[in-house]
């Protein structure tokens, strides 16, 4: 893979991969590491990237595998940099820039709460939610990336949504 090809990969998928890494790790230093490791691994496996036909799924699959393989390393870092402390500076984008200050504050509060709730879910549910909502992958692609049946992806999505809903209600999110 040439430098230009990697650059194109970053332009095409960098934002989704990085956002996914941020959600998965919950802190910026680890997100940076995971993002870097993901792209370098993709360079190493570029022959497979070409034939995968779906570069985004391929990159997310690498991220997940690296994450699962290096959980201990991440866990150590997690103790140093708390996710909550960084939440305020992560994920500031989205639809809110045109909103009034009060609405913007509400939106941020909601994002913060939802992200905390998702982060509290079992790993396997978190992973599917991030792949679906952050990486914007199809159920089929998630199944391939995680090596689980499509039905299991659906089931985890369903369960994840249900739990998030219940937890938000418990916290008087009040919709």
């Amino acid at each position, binding site marked *: *893979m040439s*430098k230009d090809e*990697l*650059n194109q990969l*970053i332009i095409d998928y*960098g*934002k*989704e*991969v*990085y*956002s*996914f890494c*941020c*959600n998965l790790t919950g802190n910026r230093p680890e*997100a*940076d590491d995971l*993002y*870097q490791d993901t*792209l*370098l691994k993709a*360079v*190493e*496996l570029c*022959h*497979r990237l070409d*034939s995968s036909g779906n570069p985004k799924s391929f990159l997310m699959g690498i991220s997940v595998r690296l994450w699962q393989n290096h959980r201990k390393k991440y866990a150590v870092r997690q103790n140093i940099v708390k996710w909550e402390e960084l939440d305020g500076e*992560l*994920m*500031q*984008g*989205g*639809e809110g820039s045109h909103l009034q200050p009060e609405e913007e504050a509400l*939106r941020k509060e*909601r*994002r913060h709460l*939802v*992200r905390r709730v*998702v982060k509290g879910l079992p790993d396997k549910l978190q992973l599917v*939610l*991030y792949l679906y*909502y*952050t*990486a*914007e992958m199809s159920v089929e692609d998630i199944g391939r990336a995680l*090596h689980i*049946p*499509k*039905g*299991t992806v*659906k*089931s*985890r999505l*369903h*369960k994840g*949504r249900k739990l*998030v*809903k219940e937890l*938000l*209600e418990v916290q008087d999110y009040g*919709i």
Partner: protein
Amino acid sequence: MEYKDIDEILKSSLSPAETPPAELNHRVLAKMQEKQPRGWRNRGRLAVACAIICALLIPTSIYAAGRLLSPKEAAFEAGDDKLGDAFEKTGEGVYQTITDGAYKATYLGYVNGAALSERIGSAHELNPERTYVAVAIERTDGTEIQYTDNLFVSPLIQGLQPWKYNIASMHGGYVSSLVDGVLYRIIECDSIEMFSNKQLYLIVSDTSFYSVDAYQYDEATGLITVNPAYPGTNILFPIELDPSKADAEKAAAYISRFEEEWNKPAEGTSAENTQPDKAADGATGEAADPIPRETLYTDEKNGIQISIKNDDLNGWYNGWWSDDSSSGTTFSYHFAVEGDNVESLTYSLNKGQFCYWPKAADPALRKFYGNKYTVAYDEQEGIDYHYSINVDALASDYGYDEAYLKNPMNQDEDAFHQLLYDILEKEIESMVAKLEIKMKDGSILEKELSFNNLIDEGAFLVEISLK
């Protein structure tokens, strides 16, 4: 709160919003350039170097292959990063190609040592020192090679009968991957490094097992050559290991152990009798040993050997693939029979059916062959012989409530998986594979195999053992 709402909330809260800092991207690009010289560029130089050396030393049909994966990459492809690293650190790249008949094979490289792979098994405990050889195989007619192509890849050793000492008997196995129409196969077996003062070979043939028609063995010199009269593909590469690693004492001990194992009288003449302790295991509730990579059952009276091979492709799936409530698995075990007086073979199953299970691990790609098939003995190698056994169990057949099963989304996922898995176990335990061996004198020998499912509840793995 409606589900539609929670979907919107999750979408807006988790959507990709963070752009990687430019500094981080620059760092990635810089690191990529640091890594490149040791990887791709080197491979190009190695390929060129090999091309020159090969052109000088070996026939023109052998040449360097620059566009193929390296052994390290082939190992990564097979999901064995550890082995990939071993190929890179201590392995040797070879890159020799020979074209013969329908196939072009490239000997990519090898590595020797213990604990080099992520894949472990009983063979690794018996002989921790292993030899791994990476090979790339393509079809010469330009069509894409398939996993189903009948190919035998094995190392051979000068002075040791090749029909006896080959990958099948030396506790061997392989992993394969298909990339851009090229089949990459990494074979492994007991280490041959101790024999490195002898001529070592790597063969690739279009047969299921070692074929005495494809290769010639000179009893006097111990040398092995291709049979030029063989009409198919019979490729032979020299394997050149470091002669200083030869160890005559170790080699003699290995041969002694091998011969002892080879000549050991069969514990029985049928599958049922070969594992006499299994009934006791079952009675005490202890799990039986899984079928090893290759187990031979010998019927000495009739001169028959039955092999059961495990290709490590067993996979459990549940009915959510097809939106019904079934539970299934495909065992990638297949049977092979050898015997001079055998005329034909008929395999049948009381449950499930034979199928081909591609290594892409996608159940949708399976091909089914029904629950019975007959093959003439001589045609065993000429058919798509890579059969697996597929079992499907319907939950409703085991008395589970239809209403509950029809609405799995509302159930606890783990509990539902467990239920389906339990059903599968019952199905497997009532499955019997029957083999009818028709002899040339018209007599028919029958062998029956029944199975246990060894459950790893955590991972929902399927591993079968003979009952």
